[in-house]
């Protein structure tokens, strides 16, 4: 589902492992320890999507354990400074960043996240909105120290991994009120998926969307020859290509190791944050006058 981030696990290879996992599950049902392990595993899969940028670039030429460790430490250090929340492509965010061109002020931009890219300290995301009938997009680095605050106004997912087609969509699909209030979701629930289907403007487009196998688009209303061509250039066998899948994923054991480390370090952070919040509640208001 998340093709932009390293795949959670080797999907097709995991078919091979499926037998093993089911066996493992059957056994885990019997014992408490197994249950806990199962729980942890479930947590890991969640972390994979919450913190996709912690998984390094799977390209073997660029990997080095020391570099990855240092990079992770830096990312966690930054996360101790500001709260980088869980968000997905399709969520609506508000980013406040200090700007050297308007000193002393903070620039706030509200928009829908249409793309998340790269991993490590290079992770970035694009926000899109329509302001004064003018489509505007801003790319932010996730770990840029100029960012003062990242706020999730509406936490949801969409049907696709990338929403770049919103650039060719009718303006109502990406117009959001800059003064929007954050919507609160019930805790411990799954992130809702917005099943909205987007209507595009007539051609010309920036890309040939009919070839991308997108689920979040309404009928494109194209001539049959476009679809024929799309079928001709499609590569449906690629999802069965084990070697390709293997090259663009990180082995599951390694993922668990990385995410386990991240989890332990960030959980401490969560705990301290909660404690701080609680502390703040009990602080007496000081008299100013």
């Amino acid at each position, binding site marked *: 589902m998340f093709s932009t981030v390293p795949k959670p696990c080797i999907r097709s290879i995991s078919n091979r492992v499926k037998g093993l996992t089911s066996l493992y599950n059957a056994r885990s049902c019997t014992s408490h320890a197994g249950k806990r392990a199962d729980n942890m595993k479930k947590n890991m899969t969640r972390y994979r999507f919450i913190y996709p940028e912690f998984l390094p670039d799977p390209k073997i*030429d*660029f*990997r*080095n354990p*020391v*570099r*990855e460790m*240092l*990079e992770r430490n*830096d*990312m966690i*250090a*930054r996360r*101790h*400074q*500001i709260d980088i929340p869980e968000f997905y492509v399709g969520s609506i965010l508000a980013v406040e960043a*200090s*700007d*050297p061109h*308007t*000193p*002393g002020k903070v620039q706030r931009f509200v928009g829908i996240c249409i793309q998340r890219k790269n991993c*490590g*300290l*290079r992770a970035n995301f694009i926000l899109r909105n329509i302001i004064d009938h003018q489509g505007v997009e801003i790319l932010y*680095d996730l*770990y*840029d*120290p*100029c*960012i*003062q605050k990242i706020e999730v106004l509406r936490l949801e997912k969409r049907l696709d991994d990338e929403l770049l087609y919103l650039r060719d969509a009718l303006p109502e699909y990406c117009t959001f009120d800059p003064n929007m209030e954050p919507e609160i979701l019930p805790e411990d629930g799954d992130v809702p998926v917005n099943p909205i289907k987007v209507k595009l403007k007539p051609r010309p487009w920036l890309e040939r969307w009919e070839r991308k196998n997108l689920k979040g688009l309404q009928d494109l209303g194209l001539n049959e020859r476009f679809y024929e061509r799309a079928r001709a250039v499609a590569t449906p066998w690629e999802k069965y290509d084990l070697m390709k899948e293997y090259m663009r994923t990180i082995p599951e054991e390694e993922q668990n190791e990385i995410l386990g480390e991240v989890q332990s370090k960030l959980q401490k952070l969560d705990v301290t944050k909660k404690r701080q919040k609680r502390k703040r509640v009990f602080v007496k208001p000081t008299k100013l006058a």
Partner: protein
Amino acid sequence: MSINFSSVVSKCCLRSLEDKFVFLSISGNLGQIREKHKINPPPRLRNPTWFTKKLRAPSTELITHENKDFLKEVVQDRFHDKVPHEEITQIEWTPDLQRTGVIARKIGIYPLWFKDGKKITTTLLQVLDNHVIKYYAPEEFDPPRKRVGRIKNKKGCLLLGAEAQDPSTFTREYCGLFKDSGVIPKKTLGRFFISPNARLPIGTLISAMHFQVGNVVDVRGKTIDRGFQGVMKRHGFKGMPASHGVTKTHRRGGNIGGGGEKGRVWPGTKMPGHMGNRSRVAKGLKILRINTKHNVLWVSGQAIPGETNSIVYIYDTKLPLRKPEKPLPFPTFIEPTDNLPEDIYDESIHSFVEPSIMHNES
């Protein structure tokens, strides 16, 4: 010092004796052959003494686990905690003094941010376990290529090794290089020319703190091997049009020379050939951050020759205008690294443990 000197003298004597013997034996055998200088011409380039066969053919001996452990113990006992015999005398550094460089590994690239909010891409270089293996005094070291003319302030040569490895994988000859130093045999060797004052005792460990944050270094590495490549990739030629009647010459170089008096291919003409895998130096890279625990240097820029995980050599810069202002630790940094902070940042760099950057009106 005196012991060292006597050993040098004895070595010199031995070598000259050896040479004579070799000469005698050769002259005995080849005395009768005419034109022998053509049969056995003097070598144009002699490899340095430490260029021996390194790796041993993997043995097929079947050793039990206990014996393997025993071998490991032997290695550990033999190379355990060797402290250099001599003390290092620290001298005030002056710009005309040359320190040793270090052997490092390029471990990746990632961005850092300046305090004004700008991003800079940095390359991470991990300084390996550099030990001094040998020192050649200026008189003693004879370089493979002789320079013509008188040489002022002649440099000595320091041989460093990095990356300790199981000695049983190396040849006997190669292990012999490390015999005097007491250092466990190393996978990588590097030689660095130094001022005689910068001599380090054999067995000294050099850490990343040899360099200082804010100073400028040159990094030498082997560029990525790209094999035999055409002119478009190798020299950035434009190639030829894709259409308009062009046949079979889309990525070719075209003309390589004129006619008439110049009717030949001139030396140095850019043509297809092997690209990469040659030594290149990236000069003038600033050190922005040092990790003392893992011995990692963050240097500015992303164009350091070589792939990730390849070996590079780091030197103090040769660029005349970027020489350090403050004195460097000379000959090297010898204080204990326990009390140092884990991360040392350049003053212009934003540390990730600091709060977010806010641009204020000046």
